[in-house]
């Protein structure tokens, strides 16, 4: 990856720890909490948040994974990578506070799709959103409840979140990219 590094492994670890505290604080405890990571990189991030909560609260929070491919409003972008990565929600959503976890918040379309998907599985008492990076440029009235880092970007830039579980290292990088690549990568 040839981008400029804006978060190192240590920064990500601290951000996750802070978010995990914020989530518990906002919920005033851990009762009824559940975390659902959005495929792909939201899933390991959700697991890390759960591990952090287990460490400081001693409470085990259920973690799920959500694939939003079938809920996107831009099927043509999906067609270039049509592989669906799997949804696993091994607990009942009804009445819970579900915190969606994703790597980058950008247009908000992924989150819109994720909420549609989630509601097909049940009726959560509340849905909240935690992201590692908020890069702006929202196209929908959506905001994150918990943000690791706000990063002002231009639309031409790409934000890459690397996580150890998938990419072999933890980092957030920002890169100027040709328009075509931007179209492929315009997730979030």
């Amino acid at each position, binding site marked *: 990856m040839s981008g400029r590094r804006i978060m190192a492994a240590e920064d990500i670890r601290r951000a996750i720890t802070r978010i995990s505290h914020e989530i518990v604080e906002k919920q005033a405890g851990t009762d009824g909490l559940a975390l659902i990571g959005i495929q792909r990189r939201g899933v390991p991030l959700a697991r890390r948040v759960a591990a952090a909560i287990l460490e400081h609260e001693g409470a085990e929070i259920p973690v799920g994974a959500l694939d939003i491919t079938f809920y996107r409003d831009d099927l*043509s972008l999906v067609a270039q990578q049509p592989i669906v990565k799997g949804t696993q929600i091994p607990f009942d959503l009804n009445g819970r506070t579900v915190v969606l976890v994703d790597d980058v918040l950008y247009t908000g379309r992924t989150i819109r799709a994720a909420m549609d*998907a989630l509601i097909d*599985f049940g009726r959560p008492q509340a849905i909240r959103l935690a992201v590692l990076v908020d890069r702006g440029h929202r196209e929908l009235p959506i905001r994150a409840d918990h943000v690791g880092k706000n990063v002002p970007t231009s639309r031409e830039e790409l934000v890459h979140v690397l996580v150890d579980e998938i990419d072999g290292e933890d980092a957030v990088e920002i890169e100027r990219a040709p328009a075509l690549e931007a179209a492929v990568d315009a997730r979030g």
Partner: protein
Amino acid sequence: MTTEVERPGSVSPAPATWGHRHLLDVDRLSRADIELVMRTTDEMRDVLARPIPKVPALRGVSVTILFYEASTRTRVSFEVAAKNLSADVVNVAAASSSVSKGESLIDTVRTIEALGADMLVMRHSVSGAPYLAAEVFGGPVLNGGDGWHAHPSQALLDLYTLRSRLPDGSLEGRKVVILGDVLHSRVARSNIWTLTAMGADLWLCGPATLLRGFEGWAVRGAAGRRFTVTSDVSAALRDADVVMALRIQKERMASGLLPSLREYAARFGLTRARLEAARPEVLVMHPGPMNEGVEIAADVATDPRSVITTQVANGVAVRMALLYLLAAARRAEEGA
């Protein structure tokens, strides 16, 4: 990320894209394409297991199902699949349409497109008819069976069923027997492609009159594919891992290819006694509709070794995957 990293523990290479505009037969599908259909089908099965088995992936897409031949499971299965993906479905049965007034296939397809169809699923008694439709129709065409030629969605659902039921999920070296009226069977012709492509040791078995033309294929031996043609039922069934019985089409009797249904049942019918020769964990398949007591005994069809109802259930998931992949490819084309 623009490059996909493999999910740990997954065996097959991740195919990058789906490059087919239509699904007319399986002969153009690479092994990677087939893997992509199988993996997408896995996801569709997960969707079907949800409390609300419906996703909005094909919202606003209009799917027309045009069947010139009778069908229950294929037509209903495509319809359910399209509805599960939130597509709008229009059914046209040729018998009750302007086709009965003599409208040509090309005119019918043009009319359907003008009425707003984005995708066309069709069945026709003439081999090759969907290819003609694909030349005229602006969107993807899915062949739901044409003449004796091809039935791609059936072959893919058979493959999916086998992979989910065989112990290690692999057809490599497995002895698969297709038993019955191979000559008139589009199911057999499409299955020959997929099963041999996945490494199966394929046997075609039936009366010699219903195997005509296939001996040549076996002798030429397509590039490394294992393929045997025989009228010897006991040799075919010996140690078989899979037996797929085909429907004896009663309408063929007039042609003198078979002396009688009774004689066929006696010599080639799949009975419990014959099945003894196969491996104990053999899987019994039938694409339906069955003539119980002719090509398959009633007790074999309902035996625990039978996966016939699983085939039907998997049909919906496979057809969801196919509709989804073709619709996504079409959108990509339009966007480009």
